[in-house]
């Protein structure tokens, strides 16, 4: 009803009868500038600082790195660039291994999330509207509760005397408790458990908008349901798959809390290396170089995510 009436009203594009003073012309900057400047100074410019410091050298002082730019008494400006930090990243194999291990862990966790999240989103999209809103709330609710505490809670399930082992022992499936804590499996479990809602929600958003008549048409033309799924549902949900996968994959690469709390000493993810370099070794220039190299790795996935999420927003 509401729509029918508002649509008949022509949008008043006619110039308004208000004076075109200075405020009228420039007033919009009062709205644009505060967030623009704030994010520029406190979000974007910090990257420039990190970039600069990655070319510095460590020094025993506060802050613990040398100046890039020095002005000598006779007003000569000296720029000292130290490429050693980046060279170090390639020579010390810890970094290469950590990058590779992070990518691998993030990739497989994303696949598991997709395998579990896709049927969930599909089921969610096909339930009635009233159950849908309740189920949606149930899936979003864990996202609101503390991330750190949820990772911690998982330890109660997968540790040697935890619920999973107790249940499996009681059922007679296993003879002795499985060692999951401090292994790669625990890291996978942690990432899937923490990031599952991020996968389900974008998938649900695309699947919900899917035109059911297409599936009906496929059915009428003799397609069995699995064929209709492969030919219609799956291709049309690609934007959701990519958006959801990137929302899991990108933060998972940089994950620090999960490998630290659940993983073992072998689970050297880049987030952990960065943390240790910073707080343990206090080598800020190398940490900056690791961060910059990490960021370069992320440009592709982030661009992919931006592309598909803006597409989804526009449709």
């Amino acid at each position, binding site marked *: 009803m509401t729509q029918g*009436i508002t649509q008949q009203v022509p949008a008043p594009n006619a110039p308004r009868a208000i004076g075109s003073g200075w405020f009228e012309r420039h007033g919009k900057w009062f709205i644009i500038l505060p*967030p623009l400047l704030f994010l520029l100074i406190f*979000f974007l410019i910090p990257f420039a600082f990190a970039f600069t410091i990655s070319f510095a050298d460590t020094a025993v002082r506060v802050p613990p790195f040398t100046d890039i730019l020095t002005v000598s008494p006779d007003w000569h400006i000296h720029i000292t660039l130290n490429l050693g930090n980046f060279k170090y990243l390639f020579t010390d194999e810890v970094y290469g291994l950590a990058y590779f291990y992070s990518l691998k862990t993030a990739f497989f966790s994303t696949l598991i999330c997709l395998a579990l*999240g896709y*049927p969930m989103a599909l089921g969610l999209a*096909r339930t009635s509207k009233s159950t849908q809103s309740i*189920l949606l709330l149930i899936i979003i609710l864990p996202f609101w509760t503390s991330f750190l505490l949820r990772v911690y809670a998982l330890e109660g399930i997968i540790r040697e005397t935890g619920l999973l082992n107790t249940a499996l022992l009681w059922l007679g499936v296993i003879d002795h408790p499985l060692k999951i804590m401090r292994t790669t499996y625990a890291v996978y479990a942690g990432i899937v458990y923490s990031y599952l809602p991020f996968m389900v929600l974008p998938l649900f958003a695309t699947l919900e908008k899917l035109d059911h008549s297409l599936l009906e048409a496929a059915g009428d033309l003799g397609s069995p349901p699995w064929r209709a799924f492969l030919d219609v549902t799956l291709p049309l949900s690609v934007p959701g798959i990519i958006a959801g996968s990137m929302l899991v994959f990108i933060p998972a690469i940089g994950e620090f809390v999960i490998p630290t709390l659940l993983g073992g000493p072998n689970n050297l993810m880049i*987030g952990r290396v960065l*943390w240790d370099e910073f707080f343990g070794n206090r080598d800020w220039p190398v940490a900056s170089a690791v961060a910059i190299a990490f960021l370069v790795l992320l440009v592709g996935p982030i661009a992919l995510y931006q592309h598909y999420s803006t597409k989804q927003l526009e449709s």
Partner: protein
Amino acid sequence: MQNRISPFLISILCIGIAVLYIPMLVLIGYSFNASALVSVWGGFSTTWYTQLVRNDQILDAAWLSLKIGVVVSTGALILGTLAAIALVRFKRFRGRLLLTGMVNAPLVMPEIITGITQLLLFISMLQLFGWPHRGFTTIVIAHIAFCSAYVTITVQSRLFSADRSLEEAAMDLGAGPVRAFIDTTLPAIAPALASSWLLSFTLSLDDLVISSFVSGPGASTLPMVIFSKVKLGVSPDVNALASLIICLVGVCVLFTGYLMRRTEQRRVLDAQMAEL
């Protein structure tokens, strides 16, 4: 087709939801365990809850986190809403692409990178201007930067769908653009504002990585204290604290969800009444 949902999908949906909830329920169950040993059930007890009240370290950290949370969510709400208005209402302005990028980037940027880069900025600023000292101020600034992104995304989608005709009508009747916005569109996006305030609050309250980087000596937030305890393994008083937080957040979110639903229903009802 609409109502046909295969048993396979239903079971996966149930398993998925079970996976999300069982660890938290088990944690809450263990928080009432009288035994200090995590593997032994020593009977029902509320000892760990009473110990919590006497733990000054945790209480101080909780108070600091709450203070930060309130300032952050208010600041992020203002900045994020302004950014949302700018992006939805002003189609062309210098820096639009930059603003879009900066609003979306914090959502996918790993916290550890944001944390390091912001710390380096704060250190350099302190050297140059003597401000800000690491602690409350730096945590607040760093949190506002990423929380405002979440606010913008939430408010943006609401502004897109908001009906502009009322605002235009108000302006035709002589109201200035600011006044017209406040009287017509602001009430319509109020639920989104409320939920994004709450979202910022919980995000700020929960953040560990960024806070650890930008914080200074003496300013430990609740997640920082919890993390240092949890690193050493499961501890019963953290179980109690975690249960409290999980329940509190759960109740808050459910209550706001209920309130928003009710106001939304009333708004729809009012709109229908107005048309009769």
